[in-house]
């Protein structure tokens, strides 16, 4: 019998995270705010960061999965400490008490299989994607910052900025309409070092990175961002690009919010 324990003061979140395991007839043990952790050995331990302050070492688990709601108790230094722990993982998006960001049925199934592989000692097991840390977050962030800059130049009514800010605006307007302008700040190496062929292949790589990032989140449609990247590739002018930059920026904003609640 597969056993799951969950340590979380929010009852609704305990229920949403264990729903699949209950349906699969697993044995579930729930520990709320006032429940004392007792010595036991579940196959899977799900634990909220804030409630990890409890005497968690008494629970001898095969796999532990931490999560948080994007607040202060989330461990901001997780990446640096993760490697020191055995089979200790983290859900990288925020998991909210209302069920937002909780495990989907497919993800729960994936986790279920993963834990079974760990118990069976399978060497070729692969970690579920939602437990993998984001690999290229700075590309998404950089794209958002460039979108803001582009909109501030080509759609000035979007933001309230002092006139003095744009003393050199004429020059800025011209340079920001080129594919080169975007790529100079998004490429993983200087575009000056790239041949023409490499330049377009770098842009394709960029699209793959963006795709991968969204695959990890599995939350939103990323079409507006890819549409913008197509537009950058085609070298479209502001008449076409402003709306696309706005939509892409909105999508990125939602995406980043999903990550942190």
């Amino acid at each position, binding site marked *: 019998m597969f056993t799951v324990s969950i340590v979380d003061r929010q009852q609704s979140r305990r229920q949403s995270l264990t729903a699949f395991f209950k349906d699969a007839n697993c044995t579930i043990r729930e520990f709320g705010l006032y429940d004392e952790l007792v010595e036991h050995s579940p196959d899977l331990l799900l634990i909220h960061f804030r409630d990890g302050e409890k005497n968690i070492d008494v629970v001898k688990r095969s796999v532990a999965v931490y999560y948080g709601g*994007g*607040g*202060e*108790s*989330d461990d*901001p*230094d997780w*990446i640096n400490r993760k490697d020191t722990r055995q089979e200790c993982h983290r859900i*990288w*998006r925020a998991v909210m008490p209302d069920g937002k960001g909780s495990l989907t049925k497919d993800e729960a199934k994936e986790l279920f299989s993963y834990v079974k592989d760990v118990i069976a000692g399978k060497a070729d097991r692969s970690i579920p994607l939602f437990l993998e840390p*984001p690999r290229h*977050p*700075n*590309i998404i*962030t*950089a794209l*958002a*910052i*460039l*979108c*803001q*800059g582009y909109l*501030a130049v080509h759609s000035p009514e979007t*933001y*309230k*900025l002092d006139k003095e*800010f744009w003393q*050199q605006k004429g*020059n*800025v307007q011209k*340079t920001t309409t080129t594919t080169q*302008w975007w790529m*100079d*700040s*998004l*490429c*993983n*190496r*200087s575009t000056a070092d790239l041949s023409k062929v490499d330049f377009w292949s770098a842009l394709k790589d960029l699209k793959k990175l963006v795709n991968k990032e969204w695959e990890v989140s599995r939350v939103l449609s990323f079409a507006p961002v890819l549409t913008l990247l197509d537009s950058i590739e085609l070298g479209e002018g502001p008449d076409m690009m402003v709306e696309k930059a706005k939509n892409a*920026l909105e999508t*990125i*904003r939602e995406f*980043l919010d999903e*990550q*942190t*609640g």
Partner: protein
Amino acid sequence: MSISPQWQIDRGQLNHNWLQNGVVVALNHASGICTGTVRPRDITRSLSEDINRWQERSTELSSLLNRFVVEMSPRIYFNSPPLSRCPEETRSWLEPLTHELWLQRGMREKIDAAKAAYQKADSAFQKIYAELSNLPSSPTTDDLKPACSQLQTLIARCQALADSISALPHRVLCC
């Protein structure tokens, strides 16, 4: 999902671990002494220990609030790839623009509110320190009454401070 600055780690230590789970808990203990529900052997010493928890790290907390605008601004993205490779002619306007738009998204108001809450809490502590220094060595319940009401103010102000620090963003907001 993004860069995790030292500021976030320090905020967790100071606000969550020290202020909320240390200072506020100690103040509630002190309040229990004043109302007579907690009876330590040495009342004055115990009260003093509880209330002096503030002095242990309050300067660090003040400095944390001052560091916010530098360390949590999205302009830090220009220090690492890919934006660190951004040409100077773009960086010269895009970096300050990114910072300015971030401030316009309510950051100025939020950090000002947190700093004001800090000042209010600190001034309430200074008042209660003065009150404590006037207590006799074995105070009666009547002696403790003024401190009791001040403690309630202090707890409320510390909680308001903790809330205002929690209201600051939990990631570097780039857009």
